[in-house]
């Protein structure tokens, strides 16, 4: 088994952190987030390297990530998982302008620029670029801008997968509802329904198996989970 070099954005909590902790047992993982290191409150594997790079400024986030990779002497990457994301719920289909721009900057513009910047790192290993979408990528009246951002990522992955075929495998994964802090931050209280959300650990397993399959697009929802999607599959 090879020890992989992996970059995961948005790895300070939620799905990204569960994936990072899981993969760091057998691989070298760098994670990013917008908060200060000391503000990471959940179990954060000591094997993980943390880079603070806020994606509300896409150009700066890219620069920071590239510099830190060089500083840690990582000239190549086997996997990049672009997972950082935010969303905001609205009542009547109308987002606030500032939140709209924030959602698009963090979820799309930054993801696009980081994907572009990581091309030389990934092409050296014929690696895999994994973009975390959402089942909302087909449209959602409670999250118009968030849905639009995930629709954009779905389209980006589709075209880029074709462009980079044979060099870097590009894939988009669309998780269904996962039990993380995202819904509360979005201004939505799912209440008892959240008991039916998939937990982060099985979601992280499904993501790992999807990464090793390199297929795209893949929906990671309840039906896959019940079909054994979190227990069967190849590890990275």
């Amino acid at each position, binding site marked *: 088994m090879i020890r992989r070099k992996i970059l995961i954005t948005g790895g300070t909590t939620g799905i990204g952190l569960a994936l990072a902790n899981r993969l760091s047992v057998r691989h070298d993982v760098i994670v990013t987030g917008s908060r200060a290191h000391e503000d990471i409150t959940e179990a954060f594997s000591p094997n993980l390297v943390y880079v603070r790079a806020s994606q509300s400024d*896409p*150009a700066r986030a*890219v620069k920071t990530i590239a510099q830190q990779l060089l500083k840690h002497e990582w000239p190549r990457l086997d996997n990049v998982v672009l997972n950082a994301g935010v969303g905001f719920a609205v009542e*009547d*289909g*109308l*987002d*606030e*302008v500032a939140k*709209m*721009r924030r959602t*698009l900057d963090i979820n*799309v*513009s930054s993801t*696009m*620029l980081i*994907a*572009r*910047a990581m*091309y030389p790192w990934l092409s050296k290993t014929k690696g895999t670029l994994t973009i975390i979408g959402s089942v909302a*990528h*087909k*449209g*959602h*009246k409670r*999250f*118009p*801008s968030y*849905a*639009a*951002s*995930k*629709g*954009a*990522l*779905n*389209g*980006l992955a*589709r*075209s*880029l997968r*074709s*462009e*980079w*075929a044979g060099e870097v495998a590009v894939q988009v994964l669309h998780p269904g509802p996962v039990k993380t802090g995202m819904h509360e931050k979005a201004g939505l209280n799912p209440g008892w329904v959240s008991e039916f959300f998939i937990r982060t650990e099985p979601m992280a397993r499904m993501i790992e198996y999807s990464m090793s399959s390199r297929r795209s697009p893949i929906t990671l929802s309840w039906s896959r989970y019940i079909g054994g999607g979190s227990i069967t599959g190849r590890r990275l």
Partner: protein
Amino acid sequence: MRALVTGGSAGLGRALCDALLDDGFDVISVDREAPSQKTEAKHIACDLSDRMTVDNLLDKLEADEAFDVVIFNAGISATGKFEDIEPEDHLRVFETNASAPMVCCAGLIKAGKIAEEGHIVFVASLSHFTGYPGASSYAASKDALAIYAKSILKPLKNKHKISVTTAFPGPLKTEHAARHAPSEADQERRMQPEEAARLILADMRKRKAKSLPGGTTALLAMAGQLAPKPLTFAMKQIIYKKLDRTVAD
């Protein structure tokens, strides 16, 4: 009756302005460039890739009367290998094609500047159904717009009686499209912008959710839904492999 068209100075936007003028609308066109020909439409200069300028535009429109028709048509592109296109160009494409129309749409409705029973049209692209290797950020921006339109359709209909139509035009015979196509591409098979404008406006009046102007466009959209991967592969053969340069607006 008042209409707002973004990107009304040339191409499909100009054709949309002309058709609306013929129907007796007062037309305001928002474009970074002045109209290329004499027109009755009123021109407001605005670079939609610049957030401050977009905020000023919104302030201006919010101080004015409401519109019966608003068409978000302005779009730019960046073609070439994704990794060869400058980051600023990718960002400019996404700002102009997705962020600006989304922000303007929400802003205008919140300010009550789209009349009840009014119409909104978002001009996305046939690439929503086919993929577009060689213009990945453009494809992403048009998908964002199409999904945004789909997401707000019901809330706007129920609360404001405003209809939302998303247009998915295929290749048009415009200067803009020619700039981005491979040099050897056949220009003759492209649809005239006047024809596309007529079809899109007809679908808008019928309050259709989707407008696929022309038989070939509808056929390709269907093929893209039935067999997404082969179609993107075909797009790669037809466009990406023949791209001989990087072009950004």
